[in-house]
């Protein structure tokens, strides 16, 4: 039975997980990284966070990065190649909760520390540092439905069909939907987490002339606001993620009501920190840590304060603004933007 500790990232430290490895510069570990989505802002930030944290820690001699678009079978191959490369730890964003278990088991049996970030795996020998995807969707959907006064027509713009995180988010969205029986989902599409695809889909829907009262997105958000503005249709409430472009729009687009739900890509850097802690003998009590999302809406003062504080024009609009996680990452803003790992 896996004990699940639900806590905010900062609270995780208080819960006894210990401070991150201080950049002492003694150890010389090799860390392997495996990721299966390439060319997506969120994932690129995750990789950059891993590189920056490895460099900032001073304990990583080199990184071995397998970063490409592939399926679970491809990730199995990548993990096994990393085992062959003799890495000390592997930090991965699993393509699936169960599909890569066999290779993770082989890695841990070979004495390699395995940390799954962003999404969970069911393999018990791995450590999991994950964003709570179900909570992410529930929080944003509930806010949207309340904004609409509990009734109205909603466009539901999901992530990638069949992806584990999309499925978890769907569970959360459905839970919120059940609490508001007068909300109708009038249109449901998979954006594939691709900006161009998402924008085309909403333009197609706007072109039908069918009315809608709100839009929930799975993080393909700023292009949706762009589409509404360009099409000259009334701005409806939009829920997105804490991507730099969308957070900027929440503060600057006149008449836009919206909320950003946090989903830090910097969790990758936190994963490197956790792996280094374990390599250093500091074993956490719980194998699973869930980072709870929070919601910043531009209709309240507190929300606006958070949105204003998070503004960062230096970031790529697709990058989440939460470029660091207090207590888990020690790199600077410049370091993550530079995206350099040890030896680069």
């Amino acid at each position: 039975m896996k004990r699940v500790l639900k806590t905010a990232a900062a609270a995780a430290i208080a819960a006894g997980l210990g401070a991150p490895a201080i950049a002492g510069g003694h150890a010389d570990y090799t860390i392997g990284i495996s990721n299966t989505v390439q060319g997506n802002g969120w994932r690129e930030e995750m990789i950059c966070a891993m590189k920056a944290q490895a460099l900032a820690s001073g304990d990583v001699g080199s990184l071995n990065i397998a970063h490409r678009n592939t399926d679970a079978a491809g990730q199995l191959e990548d993990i096994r190649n990393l085992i062959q490369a003799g890495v000390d730890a592997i930090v991965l964003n699993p393509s699936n909760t169960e599909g890569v278990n066999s290779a993770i088991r082989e890695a841990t049996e070979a004495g390699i520390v395995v940390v799954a970030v962003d999404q969970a795996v069911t393999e018990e020998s791995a450590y999991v540092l994950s964003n709570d995807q179900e909570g992410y969707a529930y929080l944003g959907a509930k806010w949207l439905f309340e904004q609409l006064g509990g009734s109205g027509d909603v466009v539901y713009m999901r992530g990638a069909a069949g992806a584990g995180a999309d499925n978890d988010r769907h569970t959360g969205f459905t839970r919120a939907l059940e609490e508001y029986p007068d909300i109708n989902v009038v249109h449901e599409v998979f954006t594939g987490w691709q900006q161009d695809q998402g924008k085309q889909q909403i333009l197609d829907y706007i072109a039908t002339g069918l009315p809608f009262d709100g839009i929930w997105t799975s993080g393909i958000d700023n292009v949706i606001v762009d589409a509404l503005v360009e099409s000259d249709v009334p701005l409806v409430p939009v829920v997105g993620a804490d991507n730099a472009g969308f957070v900027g729009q929440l503060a600057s687009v006149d008449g836009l009501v919206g909320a950003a739900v946090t989903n830090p890509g910097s969790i990758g850097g936190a994963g490197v920190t956790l792996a280094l802690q374990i390599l250093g003998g500091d074993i956490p009590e719980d194998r699973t840590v869930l980072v709870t999302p929070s919601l910043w809406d531009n209709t309240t003062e507190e929300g606006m304060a958070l949105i204003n504080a998070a503004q960062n024009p230096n970031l790529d609009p697709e990058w989440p603004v939460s470029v660091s996680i207090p207590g888990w990452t020690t790199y600077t803003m410049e370091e993550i933007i530079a995206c350099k790992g040890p030896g680069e």
Partner: protein
Amino acid sequence: MMRLISKNRWTMGLFVVLALLFVVTKIIQPDFGASGVESLARASLPFAFATAAMAVVVIAGGIDLSVASMMAVASVTAAVLMQGASDAMAIPIVILVLVIGVIMGAINGALIVITKVPDIVVTLAMLFVWEGVALLILNAPGGAAADWLEALIVGGTGLLGIPKALIVLAVCVLVVWIPLRRSRLGLSIYAIGSDENAAFRSGIAVGRTRIIAYAICGLFAAMGGLSLTMSTGIGEPIPGPYLLASVAAVVLGGVVLGGGKGGLIGPIVAVFILRLVRMDLTLMSVDPNVTTIVEGTIMVAVVMLGGVLAIRSARS
């Protein structure tokens, strides 16, 4: 013996390249050994089946862009049916999935033959159809695989430590290919790929042969889908990167894209070469964004080199 070598010069060349790559791998990573070969074999399995599937239709003068989607349908069907089923039930499930593969392939082939729409258009459309079917069967990764099926491709055999995955691959491909290659049907497949009119005038039922070639493609794709379920223990509805990889391996393996020439051994050796290149690039921790460029460059270089050698030997 000399005749055999000269007839299969391209395949022999690929074996030499593969052997050299193993030496390079051993130099990069001195610890590389049985476990490395074993993981290479397991990683190659779905690619090898996809490539075999593609090779058969390319030899027949066609192409099937829906290979990866058919693999996804096979994979999710197997995973859904095996969830909660007994170990013994897995055997009929495997047979059923293989039959479904044959049917999917035959549908592709029949559509091409009946509608006379170009194969590239029909199979491109079917790519989306089969992808949708896979998502209908299972909308998110899930399901299960029988333990004995998963164990079938894990580890080595007593025989010189040859990986089990390699044995499974060899048995599955040879059981289909050897009898086919030597039969009238096999010759017909080569004939329609080589020259459709000549084949027709020689009395070959071109349409029927084409449908059968696509059905065999579907069969290999189903095997590929099963190998995905066997290695991951689940079914994934979103097709993996097997379409372009299979075309690449087919070309690298010496099958002429126009049809009529080549076999299955060359393309499958090419799969191992491409996987080993990927492993070496990971071992050397090459920048992941550079990795795909390197893979593509190697492919172009090898195929160009092959072209030059072919022209030279034709002159002499």
